[in-house]
């Protein structure tokens, strides 16, 4: 646990002391801000049907940022260490590959969660003017964190496979995009069993439900096991590199 904590704090420092993180935060807040402004526009205009619950539109739209955000946040995690060779120093320390992966992943997740923290201001801005049902807001954030956790794990795995950050980002985007596409197929499939299986992995419908205030344990189980699976793959990829 100590080893995980040491890796976690080291990695977290790397995130917060990197000006690049603030560039990401700047663009993230700008894009989510545009989404929110769009929402405010529909809540102010009486001719437009308001989304219900109001903030569901914000979650349903801004989660699409994750296609790029998750791979960008994780591309550096392991591939940088592989490229600079610092991974060998790390491996000689009394720490296992799994602990390295866990510490780094948790740091990326913490940074990811902190990106969303300022967006609470949006909900507070609406609450100042109208009554807000906080349950769906909390569920929306839970969905954003759950889906983010899964996609960051995929990004971590992509980063463990290559020394190049660019390649890691591209592989990450490709894997995440594949998952997005699977969801789109659900609409066109008519076979009941297949439809049900695709609905299970369809992140589009997951965020839709979370944003409306429905928390389904199936989604949480999927994210939890998905995170463990991809982190396991990242660990094995790292072990494999060690033996080469």
């Amino acid at each position, binding site marked *: 646990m100590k080893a995980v904590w040491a890796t976690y704090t080291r990695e977290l420092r790397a995130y*917060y002391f990197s000006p690049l993180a603030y560039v990401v*935060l*700047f663009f993230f807040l700008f894009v989510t801000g545009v989404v929110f402004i769009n929402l405010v526009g529909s*809540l102010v205009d009486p*001719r437009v049907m308001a989304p219900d619950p109001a903030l569901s539109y914000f979650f349903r739209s801004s989660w699409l940022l994750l296609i790029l955000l998750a791979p960008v946040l994780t591309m550096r995690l392991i591939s940088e260490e592989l490229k600079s060779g610092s991974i060998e120093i790390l491996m000689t320390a009394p720490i296992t590959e799994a602990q390295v992966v866990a510490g780094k992943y948790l740091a990326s997740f913490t940074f990811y969660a902190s990106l969303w923290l300022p967006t609470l201001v949006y909900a507070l801005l609406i609450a100042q003017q109208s009554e807000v*049902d906080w*349950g769906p807001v909390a569920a929306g954030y839970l969905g954003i964190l759950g889906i983010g956790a899964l996609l960051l794990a995929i990004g971590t795995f992509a980063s463990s496979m290559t020394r190049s950050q660019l390649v890691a980002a591209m592989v990450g985007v490709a894997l995440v995009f594949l998952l997005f596409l699977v969801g789109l197929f659900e609409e066109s499939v008519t076979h009941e069993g297949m439809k049900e299986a695709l609905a299970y992995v369809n992140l589009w419908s997951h965020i839709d439900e979370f944003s409306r205030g429905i928390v389904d344990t199936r989604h949480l189980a999927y994210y939890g096991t998905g995170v463990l699976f991809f982190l396991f793959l990242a660990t*094995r990829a790292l072990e494999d590199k060690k033996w080469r």
Partner: protein
Amino acid sequence: MTDEPTSEPTVPRVSRRQLVRTGTLSAGVLLVAALFLIFNYLGWKYHHRFDWTGGGVYSLSDKSKSVLQELKKDVEFVVFIAPGQDLYKPVQEILSQYDAASQKVTVRYFDPERNPVEAQQLIQKYNVSSTGQVVVVSGADRRVVESADLAEFDYSGMQMGQPPKMTGFKGEQLFTGALLQIAEGRKPKILFTTGHGERSLDDRDVQGLSGIHEILGRDNFELEEWASRTAAAVPPGTDLVVAAGPTSPFIDSELKAFTSYLQGGGRMLILVDPTLGQTAGSGLIPTGLTPWLAGYGVKLGEDIVIDPKGAYPGAPPYTLFPDGYGDHPITAPLSQSGVPVLLNVARSVAAATAGNPQVAELLRTTGDGWGETSLASVENVEKDAGDLPGPVSLGVAVEGPKEEGKKAWRLVVLGDSDLATNQLVQGMPANAVLLANSLNWLAEREALLTIPPKKTENVRLNLTSGQVRTIYLTVLLLLPLLAAGLGTVVYFRRRR
């Protein structure tokens, strides 16, 4: 012995090691992938959905849960609502809960736009007139839930060019109602008296009852016309008798048959208009019901109710909206929703003696309304001393004394039958609700009335342009610039 060079291949040894390593790695990955699938299968099989909305929009009531648990027949919900429609999501969510709560429930969706042929076949099969419906099917039995009935809308902003706002969703009320009806098995049988100029169930004209016939049929009632004049008694197995707008008197043998039917726990709905006689000043045509109803504590007024304050805009003051509803299960949903019922040429119907606990008032006019007793002409009438002062009661519900082992009689009397005609039922949805609720209360199907609609969030912002500008600046400038500022600070601290 010559030393022959040993050709121990080193490369294959490395390959073997690599092979073993790759094999172990693959086996590990496969094992974890299998565990991933098993855990997800279990998670899918034993899942739970939590509803975090404040109003419990996605939670089933205890009543629905118990109805679902006691289902003995397989039930299929066939949804003909396109995914783009506003009602699709709430219907899908509530039905997924029905599906999860009972093994006997299945749900099928048909998008008439994507599968027009299949949808058309099913529309014909289930005899539904258009799309935008949910058909609840159990064997040969089926109920149709109209999408127009599924939601409550606020139309108040329409004059300002605003679209109607959905303020409540009644999916659970209607779907559980349909399940209850299916569980009931036998359809309650209603006989409509004939032979006294009553309105006809099959009449498709504006003054006919074909519309209400169709609506009540969907509510699982079996409606038939009955020639009461020649019958000695109400036929056994009759759950309800309705007299809808008689314009000539019931004879003694009929009234006796009604009396003995009610004494045996019978149920009756009487819609009785103030029909003017052929000659001026001859008063209202007698129906024989006034003295008979007095025996049940109901006073049928010899008047026509006038209410200039509650009148339908542009119509004479005898075409009116009741101003208030009594505290009764029949009118409670109307009173909650505030949707108005429209009456046309009604007479007063009240308790014969004030304070009789058996008689409950259902509808009344405003305080400015009155019962006009000078019936020579109903044009240009004025309230005077001989008239019945307002607020005037327009309908009552009466229940007989409850005795052990005996079914108490029930009676609903409304002073107007126009409210049930095609003209008013089609234009005023609350009229159909009033009639259906009266029949459901009479047939002791109160459970169909009790699930209140779920209220939705409905956030609307009334902001001045200054407030909108402040939000824009906060969100698009202040927050991103704070991030940029923090980044700059970090950058310069690192350089130092």
